[in-house]
C-alpha cells in the first residue's frame, strides 16, 4: 500500500511543480494591457495570420498523404517497392529536426542547392527559396510535411491493421470496388483514429517551432514567424517576456477547444 501512495505523490509533485505552477506563475505576470498592446503589434498579427496559413495548408496535405500512404502500405504489402517504402518511411520522423532542416536549407540554397540545380537542368529559372515570403512559407510547410507525415501514417497504419481480414475477403467476394470498400469498411472503422489524428496534428501544429526556426528563423524580414517563434523572439531577443506570455495565452482558447474535442472522441471510443 505504501509504495502506491508514494508513487502517486511523486507524480503529483512533478505535475504540480512543473506544469500547473509555471502556468499560474506566468499568467500572474501579465495584465489586460499586455493583450491590448499585442493587437497593436504588427508582427503579432502577422504571426497569427501565418499560423493560420501554416495550419490550413499543412494539415490537409499531411492527413491526405497519411491516409493514402497507409492504404498503400497495408493494401499492397506484397509489392517489393512498397516493402522498401514501408521500411524507410518512418526515417524523417526518427531523424532529428536539426539534421533534416540543415539538409533542407542546403538543398534550397539559391546558387548551389540541389533543388535549383535540378530546376536549371530541366531549363527552369533558379528560385530564391528562402528569400521571398511565399517561397519561404512553402519551404517551411514542405519540411514540416516531410518530417511529420510519417507519424500519422504510423497511427493510421496501426488502425488499419486492426481491421479483421475477413471483412475485406467478403467484400472481394461480393465484388465491391476499391472505393466502395474504403467507404463502407475501412473508413468507418478508422474514423475515430482519423479524427484524433486530425485534431492532434492541429494542436501540435499550433506548437510547431523547429520547422520555422530552423528553416527561416522567421525571415526573410520577419515575415514567416508564427506564434511560437514570435514568443521566443520577443522573450529572448527583445526582453519582452510579457508580450511572449500574452501571445501564447492568446492561442490557448483554440488549443483548449481542440483538446476538448479530442477528449470527447476518446471518451466515446472508450464506452
Amino acid at each position: 500500500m505504501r509504495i502506491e501512495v508514494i508513487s502517486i505523490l511523486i507524480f503529483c509533485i512533478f505535475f504540480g511543480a512543473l506544469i500547473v505552477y509555471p502556468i499560474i506563475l506566468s499568467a500572474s505576470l501579465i495584465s489586460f494591457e499586455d493583450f491590448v498592446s499585442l493587437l497593436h503589434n504588427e508582427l503579432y498579427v502577422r504571426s497569427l495570420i501565418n499560423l493560420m496559413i501554416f495550419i490550413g495548408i499543412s494539415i490537409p496535405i499531411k492527413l491526405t498523404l497519411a491516409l493514402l500512404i497507409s492504404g498503400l502500405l497495408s493494401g499492397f504489402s506484397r509489392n517489393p517497392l512498397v516493402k522498401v517504402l514501408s521500411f524507410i518511411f518512418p526515417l524523417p520522423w526518427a531523424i532529428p529536426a536539426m539534421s533534416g532542416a540543415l539538409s533542407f536549407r542546403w538543398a534550397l540554397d539559391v546558387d548551389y542547392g540541389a533543388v535549383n540545380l535540378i530546376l536549371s537542368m530541366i531549363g527552369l529559372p533558379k528560385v530564391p527559396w528562402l528569400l521571398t515570403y511565399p517561397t519561404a512559407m512553402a519551404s517551411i510547410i514542405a519540411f514540416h510535411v516531410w518530417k511529420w507525415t510519417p507519424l500519422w501514417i504510423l497511427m493510421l497504419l496501426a488502425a488499419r491493421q486492426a481491421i479483421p481480414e475477413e471483412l475485406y475477403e467478403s467484400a472481394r467476394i461480393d465484388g465491391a470496388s476499391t472505393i466502395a470498400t474504403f467507404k463502407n469498411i475501412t473508413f468507418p472503422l478508422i474514423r475515430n483514429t482519423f479524427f484524433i489524428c486530425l485534431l492532434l496534428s492541429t494542436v501540435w501544429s499550433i506548437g510547431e517551432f523547429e520547422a520555422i526556426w530552423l528553416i527561416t528563423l522567421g525571415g526573410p524580414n520577419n515575415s514567416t514567424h508564427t506564434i511560437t517563434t514570435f514568443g521566443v523572439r520577443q522573450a529572448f531577443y527583445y526582453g519582452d517576456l510579457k508580450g511572449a506570455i500574452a501571445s501564447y495565452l492568446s492561442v490557448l482558447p483554440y488549443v483548449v477547444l481542440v483538446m476538448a474535442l479530442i477528449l470527447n472522441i476518446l471518451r466515446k471510443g472508450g464506452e
Partner: protein
Amino acid sequence: MRIRLTDVAISLIAIILIVWVMAPVYNMVVTSLLTYEEVWETHLWPPNPTIEPYIEVLTQRYFRVNLFWTWFGNSIKFALLVSLLSLTVSVLYGYAISNKSTLSQKVKNLFNTLSVITYIFPSALLAIPIFILMMYYNLLNTDIAVTLSLSILTIPFNSWMAAQYFNSMPRELKEAAEIDGASTTTYLFRILLPVAAPMLVAIFTYSFMFTWNNYLYPLLLLNEDAKFPLQIGMSSFLAADDSPWNIFMATAIIYALPPVVLYYAFKKYMISGLFRGAVKG
C-alpha cells in the same frame, strides 16, 4: 492485364514516395562525402568520396565543432537522465494506478485525463512558463533545468502507457504472488517488471529519442557553450558565412544516427507501445 497495370501504377507511386522520403537524406550523405571545393561545384554524386569531413568533426579540427565531444556527451547525458527519471516516475505511477485497491475509479479517471491532456498540450507553449519557473528558482543554465523540463514533457504519455500496460495484465499474476507470500516490492521488481520489459523498452526509447531530438528547451534553458547538447552547438551552422556544408552535413548525420539506430532496433516495441496503444484510445 488489369492486375499488371495496377502493379505498375503502385510501383510508380512507391518510387515517387521513396524519392520524397530519401531525397533530404541522400543530399546529406552525398554532401558529407565531398571536399570543400567540390561543395561549390554542385554534384549529384561524389566524384571522389572522402571521409575527411567526418574526421574534421570527430577530431574537432573545424572551429564550429571545437566542442563536438563535449556536446555529444551532453546529449547522451541528458537523454539518459531524462529517460531514467521519466521511466521511474511513470512505471511507479502506472503500477499504483493499475492496482485495484489503491484509489477509487473516479480519481483514477481524473489522473488518466490529466495525463492525456498534458500529453496533447503542445510542448512549445509550455516553454516560456517553464523558462520563467527556472528563472525564479535560479536554475537557468543548469543540467537540472533541462532534465526536469524534458522529463515532465515525457512523463504524462509514459505514465499513461505504463498504466494501460499494467491494466492489461492478468490479475492471476498478482494473486499467485500473494499466495506465495511475495511482498509488494518483490512483486513489482521480480515479477511485474520482467514481464513488462517490452513496455519499459518502448518508454525508454521514446524518452531517449524525444530528449535527443528536442531543440527548443535546451535552446532556451542553457546559455553556456560547454553545457550545450549537440543540436544547440550546431545552431551556429545556421548563421555561418563560410558554410563548409560537407562538414555541416557530416555533423548532421552523426547527430541523427543514435535516434535512427534506436528506432530501428526497437521498432517492434515502439510501434506496439506507442501506436497500437494510442489508437485504442
